[in-house]
């Protein structure tokens, strides 16, 4: 309920924003740096970079979208959504990689 929400202060919000922005800049920098590292294969790089991107996304969703203090109903909806996205991607990949050997050309 609105009464239970903390009153908004512009100053605090600006401070929060500055922190988030700084963190996002650092994370982005780190991603770019990782991608130019010469001694890793693409698999390793992709994993690290995606991990950092997830942190980035967490910052934006958690703080800018106030997802860290959302209502249970929103969590429920998003929980199912994320589950289904993972199902879609995961099962599709399993199914396309799961062909018996010798039945696909490459």
């Amino acid at each position, binding site marked *: 309920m*609105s009464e239970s929400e903390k009153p908004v202060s512009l100053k605090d919000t600006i401070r929060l*924003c500055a922190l988030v922005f700084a963190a996002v800049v650092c994370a982005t920098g780190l991603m*770019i740096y990782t991608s130019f590292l010469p001694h890793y294969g*693409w698999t390793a790089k992709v994993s690290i970079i995606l991990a950092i991107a997830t942190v980035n*996304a967490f910052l934006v969703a958690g703080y*800018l979208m106030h997802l860290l203090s959302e209502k249970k109903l929103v969590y429920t909806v998003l929980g199912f959504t994320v589950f289904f996205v993972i199902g879609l991607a995961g099962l599709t990949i399993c199914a396309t990689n799961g062909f018996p050997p010798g039945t696909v050309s490459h």
Partner: protein
Amino acid sequence: MEIPYTTEHRPDTGLYNAKLGVWLFLASEVMLFGGLFSAYVLLRVGAEPGMWPHGWLNVTLGSINTLLLALSAITTLLAWAACKVRDFGKFKIFHACTMILAIAFLGIKSYEYRDKFLHYEIALNNGTFADGHLVEKSADFDLANKTGAVTLHGHIVEDRKELMDLRSPEAQKAEHKELVIPAADIKKMQNYGPWHNTFTAIYFTMSGLHALHILGGTLVIFYLWGPGSRMYKTDPERFTNRIEVSGLFWHFVDLVWIFLFPVMYLT
């Protein structure tokens, strides 16, 4: 009877209608981009070995765009906070920034698109490949009649695979110069549009869809900033809610880019 909970929160859910509405909408957007990202993964995993491109996009421009969007996400939140504390002047300033940042983003994006459309790969009759940016086409250039010539700024490679990883030491070393190629030597000429290969296809489609979201979001923000802001005088709470809801959409669009950028530009 009036529709309840347009501004006040329903006690058992703690939400007003539009907020629930936008989260539901965002859930469907997650599924939409989820489907597209799945397609990306599948195409990439299914690509023939060595044929998935690396380093084809301009990291500097991509990074700038990332920062522009992150900044705009922040001005959006501040615009909402300004409304919340009933500081209309600051709201106007913050959201003006949001729109400027969004337009800058779209500007850079179009520049990148243009660059891809001017980039050609030409399969030559002798089995080699010329690759580079279009400098000019001679006036009588005609592929079908084999007249005229085209000038590229680029280089020639023996094997298409060499064009795939622009981050590789060999590609970095390659010397780029002006090449004049007569139409008679050309087997096939194609620019780096969506039809070029599955990477450009998914890149154009996903970033294009994302750009459409930016455009749509900008229009909504413009409406709320301009003509729609009259509501601030009559019903400030409801107006603030509108800013919050549109802000949530905008942040989501930023979220998509946070994944698009590394996936397309960095890996």
